């Protein structure tokens, strides 16, 4: 599309968690190099909609503006992605239209406008004890030596920014299954791989078995395609699936 003078933005808004949602339209001058978060700041500085009516600034989450804090996930042209790294130029090319639509993630309770409550992920991380249970922070000397290969396997998993996009796009992540989602499973694997973190391995595996656990995964593989940080999610799920199964057998035998 020839980039025109202006761009149009249609935003799904909602004043409070219980209020009805509605769509508000905005139009603003096109500039090269805009991303969606700067579009939202532009609206805040000029809160007037297409009908020329004064309105309120849009509520949304953001912080780093460089796709590392995980705050700004939303539906952009219907697709779950990070608003700060969603460049307007690319979006216009993608749809060949001068209109961009924004909506909150659909599987989390709306707080207001584009801001949603994603605390469920942090709760899930507690359940799988995603930490290394160190003895204390006093000086105990260096940790164990670790082959670079282990670091190279762990590092990609530790890049998860808790954006919850993998959960949003997963058909199994819903109120019926209570599935924990790919991110939590990947973090459980990360800590099971750590030489010291692995002391909690069995407890993590037990936390992932049963209802809402790893068995809910239907292998749709949407997560791995949508993850902005390219986590090896399907690999993590199948590795953990195997370990959970082995753990169940062990627990059964030793009962």
């Amino acid at each position, binding site marked *: 599309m020839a980039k025109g003078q202006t761009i149009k933005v249609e935003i799904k808004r909602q*004043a*409070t968690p219980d209020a009805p949602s509605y769509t508000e339209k905005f139009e603003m001058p096109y*500039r090269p*190099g*805009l991303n969606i*978060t*700067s579009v939202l*700041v532009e609206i*805040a*500085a000029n*809160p007037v909609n297409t009908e020329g009516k*004064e*309105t*309120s*600034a849009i*509520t*949304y*989450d*953001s*912080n*780093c*503006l*460089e*796709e*590392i*804090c*995980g*705050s700004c996930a939303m539906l952009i042209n219907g697709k779950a992605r990070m608003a700060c*790294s969603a460049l307007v130029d690319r979006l216009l090319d993608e749809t060949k239209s001068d209109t961009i639509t924004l909506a909150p993630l659909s599987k989390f309770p709306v*707080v*207001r406008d584009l*801001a949603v409550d994603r*605390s469920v992920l*942090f709760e899930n*991380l*507690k359940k799988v*004890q*995603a*930490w*290394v249970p*160190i003895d*204390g*922070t006093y*000086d*105990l*000397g*260096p*940790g164990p*030596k*670790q082959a*670079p290969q282990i*670091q190279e396997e*762990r*590092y990609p998993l*530790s*890049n998860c*920014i*808790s954006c919850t996009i993998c959960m949003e796009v997963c058909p199994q992540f819903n109120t019926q299954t209570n599935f924990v989602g790919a991110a939590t499973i990947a973090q459980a694997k990360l*800590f099971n791989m750590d030489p*010291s973190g692995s002391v909690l391995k069995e407890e993590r595996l037990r936390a992932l078995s049963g209802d809402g656990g790893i068995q809910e995964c239907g292998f749709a593989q949407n997560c791995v395609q949508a993850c902005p940080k390219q986590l090896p999610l399907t690999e993590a799920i199948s590795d953990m699936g195997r370990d959970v199964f082995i753990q169940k057998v062990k627990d059964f035998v030793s009962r």
Partner: protein
Amino acid sequence: MAHTPKIIVVGGGLAGLSAVIKIAEAGGNVDLFSIVPVKRSHSVCAQGGINSAKNLKGEGDSVEAHFDDTIYGGDFLANQTPVRNMCAMGPSIIDLLDRMGVPFNRTPEGLLDFRRFGGTLYHRTAFAGATTGQQLLYALDEQVRRFEAEHKVVKYEGWEFLSIVKDEAGVCRGICAMDLRTMELRTFPCDAVIICTGGNGAIFGKSTNSVVCTGSAQSALYQQGAFYANGEFIQVHPTAIPGEDKLRLMSESARGEGGRVWVPKDRNDKRPAKSIPEGDRWYFLEEWYPKYGNLVPRDVATRAIHKVVYEHGMGIDGQPMVYLDVSHIDRHTLERKIEGILEIYEKFVGDDPHEVPMKIFPGVHYTMGGLWVDANQMTNIPGVYAAGEADCSIHGANRLGANSLLSCIYGGFTAGPNALNYAKNVAAQKGDGGAAKELVRQMEYNNVLLHNQGTENPFKLWRELGETMTRHATIIRYNSGLREAEQKIIELQERYRNINLSDKSQWANTSFAFARQLYNMLHLARVIVKGAELRDESRGAHYKPDFPERNDEKFLKTTKAAFDEANQAPQITWEDVDIQWIPPRPRRYDIAS
């Protein structure tokens, strides 16, 4: 003493989380407040690494050498004893982070790997790819989550600290905070507070900082009587990607791994960068600073780039930009060591830095100044401590790369136990300790703001502030410009009274929260320009062409700003610097020293 001491930590970046862990471990109760979920704090942005003199490369590095590099790099303005303590704690901090599971890069033998960073000749920087801050923050976040699961820590995420509660004797007895969803105001009692609220880049409009780095909390405390020290020392990082909304950092690790800064020797050279032969490139840092080359400290590199662009007129295509080139380094090394930052460039600019040199320019990055603290990290208000980027300690007139993450953890580890100790011994408060009064004060302020019928939009005022501050108070400073900036800020403060919020609702109202922060930003901006105006010398990041030399006789002093309530303006006094360990010497990176 019957009660378990209660400490409030404000801010959940590296400094805040470090403090929380120490207090919880020692049996104290902690309430942790943060605007954003702590895992999304600005510390997550740090890329390059964290310094400590582990000396695993057979170079003879030592705590003493780290100490000297930090003091020299900071142009002798830092109080030396805390720096010495920090450098000594460095190796044990790295060991601890390693035990917490941080995926630090490794040598083939399985030991921690170290890279070079600016302002040192040693490999002293431990790193986890190019996302070190993210990895460290997560490791500490996980430990705090563990304490939370054990009910030793209560998190208040999505709450903004507004002020402290002070009793009649001026002792801190709690805080006043606002729930950013319900907009509810509440006071929380405690025995001590630790302020770990990070940097203030937003005062300059565009910077490398995150959105919540407004310095609002520090400014609120300054207005309540805390000293703000060395505010004029603002680090402008030499290599950032200019952007519409922010200046995205291109970490010093790019140069630590061999990246080179250059411009074409012929300013009219129109060839694509990659096809310009070696002989036609001007590697000005390597030419001017043969010993440190591309790894001179940041203030030095920033001024050099500024000079090449504005004095020599040699910016690429006449634009304020120079090349930062890693395209000669082999792909595998880049992937293992700095992939994270190269991805940022590719994502936001569209070019592949493995193939073509990146275009960069300096950007506001870090505040060396902050809340004044003593060697125990306590401010001048009894019961209020500070740590991390929000305090003024350690970095003097210029911070060395990869020293901030270390100073955050050191600061948290020092403030935590000291605050707990203080809390165990502080006399019990009388009555409500001043809580009701503070709550009323904040409510009245909110009412005024919500019902104001003016015409000024807070986001527009903020843009004007950013432009003024960037123009007059960054790389090159003139007294005339600084005075102009002061006048402009005073004008903005006037216009602020005429503010009109587009949103008057009482639910998740972000313009309202922003307007409150803006008020505080304006006050802190005045501290920065006043300190800069009065300091007629050049030292570290503070550079005045009219006073190009460092003047130890007059200005080897900490700038202390106190809020003068009657005039609503900063009042500056000076304090001697602790130089008991290393006598000041001239700072010259262009010659061997």
